[in-house]
């Protein structure tokens, strides 16, 4: 279990982190979201020991993290970095060795990853000859080659095509299924919603919402009331709360408050009600709400 506890970090008189804390259990996929400059990268760099915190602590299974623990982590920094002139396979293997793999094990792991990430044909190309997305795949392979005990990935999906997104999602799910805690940051909230067991929303250096996606939804209330009415006269909903939009010959009414039964009666009086129900808030809506 990876516990991040009360991290604080200041740059000059600017506070980047103001008591960030959350916990990721083994096998849990944790989505870390927040606006630009909210503090995601700073948090992850502190977890990896690349940056020192002013206060706070990161623990693994109850013990403060040490160098040897981190050496077994897989890390993908926000600023990608590879040896541009080194060949793809050679590079992945080299990082495997640096993380302590034996030569044969490093080679096997490299081959397996090249296969999974669709890089087999590019194995002997220099990294600089690859497109940005393919370089990104190599970067991921470098983070994954040594079968990490914890994965810390800063925006791993940015710049990938849909097929690569799926391939990476599969790899991450597999690793999580083996009991590895996975933290990744992303601005693609639909993706986070689809993949993650739990989500943390950070805003201006503080965690504003955090927990399993389902729980966050609950906390957000019963969700938005959505009513679809056909053949209604214009202006029928003037007295009701909420926003109305026209889609073809239908009116779609979204209400966040008010008496739903009263809304239903008015709608039935105005035209043919085709849909009436509460819609679960999307992560995007939860996010907007939380950081507002």
């Amino acid at each position, binding site marked *: 279990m990876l516990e991040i506890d009360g991290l604080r970090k200041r740059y000059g008189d600017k506070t980047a982190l103001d008591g960030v804390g959350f916990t990721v259990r083994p096998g849990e996929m944790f989505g870390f979201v927040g606006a630009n400059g909210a503090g995601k990268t700073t948090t992850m760099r502190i977890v990896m020991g690349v940056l020192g915190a002013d206060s706070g602590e990161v623990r693994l299974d109850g013990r403060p993290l040490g160098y040897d623990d981190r050496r077994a982590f897989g890390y993908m920094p926000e600023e990608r970095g*590879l040896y541009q002139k080194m060949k793809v396979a050679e590079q992945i293997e080299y990082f495997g060795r640096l993380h302590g793999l034996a030569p044969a094990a490093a080679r096997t792991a490299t081959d397996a990853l090249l296969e999974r990430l669709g890089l087999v044909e590019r194995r002997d190309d220099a990294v600089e000859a690859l497109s940005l997305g393919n370089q990104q795949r190599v970067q991921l392979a470098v983070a994954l080659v040594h079968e990490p005990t914890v994965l810390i990935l800063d925006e791993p999906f940015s710049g990938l095509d849909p097929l690569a997104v799926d391939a990476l999602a599969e790899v991450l799910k597999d690793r999580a299924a083996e009991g590895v805690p996975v933290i990744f940051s992303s601005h693609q909230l639909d993706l986070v919603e689809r993949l993650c067991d739990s989500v943390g929303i950070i805003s201006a250096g503080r965690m504003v919402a955090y927990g399993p996606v389902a729980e966050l939804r609950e906390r957000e209330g019963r969700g938005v009331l959505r009513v679809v009415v056909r053949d209604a006269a214009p202006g029928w909903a003037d007295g009701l709360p909420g926003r109305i939009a026209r889609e073809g010959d239908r009116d779609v009414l979204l209400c966040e408050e008010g008496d739903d039964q009263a809304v239903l009666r008015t709608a039935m009086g105005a035209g043919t009600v085709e849909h009436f129900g509460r819609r679960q808030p999307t992560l995007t809506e939860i996010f907007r709400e939380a950081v507002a």
Partner: protein
Amino acid sequence: MNGLLLVAQREVRTRIRTKSFLISLAISAILVAALAFLPKALGGDGTFDVGVVGPAPAPVTQLSYSRYPDEAAARKAVIGGDVDAALIGGDRVIANGELDQRLGLILESVHRDEQIRAAGVTVTPLRVESVGADARYQGVRTGIATLLVMVLFFLFIYSSMYVAMGVVEEKGSRIVEILLTSVRPWQLLGGKIVGLGVLGLVNLAVVVAAGLAASAATGFAADLPPGMGGIVVSALVWFVLGYAFFAVLAATFGSLVSRQEELNTVLTPMTTLMMLTYVTAYFAAVQPTGTVARVLSLVPPFSSMVMPVRTAATGVPLGEILIAVALMIVAVVGVLLFASRVYQRAVLRTGARVRLGEVLR
């Protein structure tokens, strides 16, 4: 340790494959070999070729004889330049134009010796006694020392430059962020310095081998002073010490910047120190027994070039060498401590150039 070796191995593998490394290796070897050939190319080897028709005189070291059947053939050889002169019948010399003065004197004395021997008189040669220092090898030793100055300077500059460029490459591309989560800073820095140092040492060995082989091929080796082994060993040892000092400094200053373009500026203190060392070593090669040379051959980092140069140019008491080595090791440890403070703090601070003051606090 394992991490350090892996890093070193990568450095060697990457660099040894590059064209620039192979080219610089070839150029330095060819240059040194050419310098060994130079005396022969300029002054010849000091012996004369003499064509002989009829009885040949007793052999002497400065002359090599070749026989011709008759005077006509000998004449042709003289005009064609195959021989410097021809001796006909033991008492007549044919030369192309005027006879070389030194050759004339030698032929004259050979002719005289022949006649004295024919008369049954034996002459004891003059004995020469030398007073003062043995100056026989002075010219050669100064030559070797001057050459050594250039080779060491070239190797220090270019090996340290590669270290600094490697550090900036890793910092600028941010790869250092992943590297430092799998190896410790001293392993990364140490591996880079060791790897590139091995290549520098290989380069030095190739240069020395090329020089020695070329002098053996030209016969120049006979003129090499005794104790060449000691000179070579001292050059290798001082290369290692001096390289360690300058490479660590280069890496430390290199870690302050994120772009190769900023490297020259930030390395100025180190290159200045290196230039000063070079200049003093150059003076030491010319005046190896002067006070400046004697004092600076003990003071690091000047000793890294002045001491091997002094060793090559003249005899140095063992005690002084040991003191110089000990002081240099202390200096290397000193820059290592400095580096360990600066490097690991500066190398993760990408962006604008990091001020030394910020990381030393």
